[in-house]
């Protein structure tokens, strides 16, 4: 999600499901590069692929907002966890050791 292209994809899919070619075009990246990004998002369950009712030949990508929010919430939790652990690590290291001469 830190990747700007993937954030752009999420934004584009916020209002409507779109074809891969449309997403690539509107993001200004090549279809091949977009295909890689979409694969990552699909693997994480953030987007799904389906066929609109009116045209069985078309495949569109759809945002799964609950999944996106859950993932972001989870990443926030892990970030807070390590921030706290590393803070404790720094305190301990600096309390028990002399600072290097700089």
């Amino acid at each position, binding site marked *: *999600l*830190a*990747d*700007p292209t*993937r*954030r752009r994809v999420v*934004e584009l899919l*916020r209002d409507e499901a779109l074809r891969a070619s449309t997403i690539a075009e509107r993001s200004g990246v090549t279809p091949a590069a977009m295909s*890689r*990004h979409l694969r*990552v*998002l699909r*693997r*994480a369950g*953030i987007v799904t692929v389906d066929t609109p009712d009116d045209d069985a030949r078309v495949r569109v990508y759809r945002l799964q*907002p*609950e*999944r*996106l*929010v*859950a*993932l*972001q*919430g*989870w*990443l926030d*939790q*892990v*970030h807070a*966890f*390590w*921030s*706290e*652990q*590393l*803070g*404790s*690590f*720094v*305190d*301990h*290291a*600096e309390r*028990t*050791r*002399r*600072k*290097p001469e*700089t």
Partner: protein
Amino acid sequence: MSQLGSVRVTVIVGVEPAVAFQVFTEEIDTWYRRGLAESFGRKRATGLRFEPWVGGRLLEHRAGGEDGGDGLERARVTVWDPPARLVFVDQRDTEVDVRFEAAAGGTRVVLEHRGLDRLPPGVAADLGRFGWRRLAEWFERHLEGQRT
């Protein structure tokens, strides 16, 4: 490999890299705060230590023989390169990569936790508690981030 579910935390610690590495590994039991997460170091634990080699384990000790005497394996070391780098993989197959770089004021410690795009079961169960409002807030935040 694309990193969708990864988290990075950077701190500066006022000791040299070799000392930082030593404190991080040998003394993990003195600074690691138990009870913050379920992955390892739970409240029932009485100690935490690294086996200092590639393939070594991060072992959690428990009182009363609950750990089988040897300790419970919480993670496995995949890179042991003092004083520069340590990587370990936990039992959910997520990877923690810690780098120690000389910096003004001591050592820059960069910790990256990867492979988080598979949600742990408890978090997945919490899905329903989040709503669109929070999603909207998140969008606003990252849109602002893009503008600046």
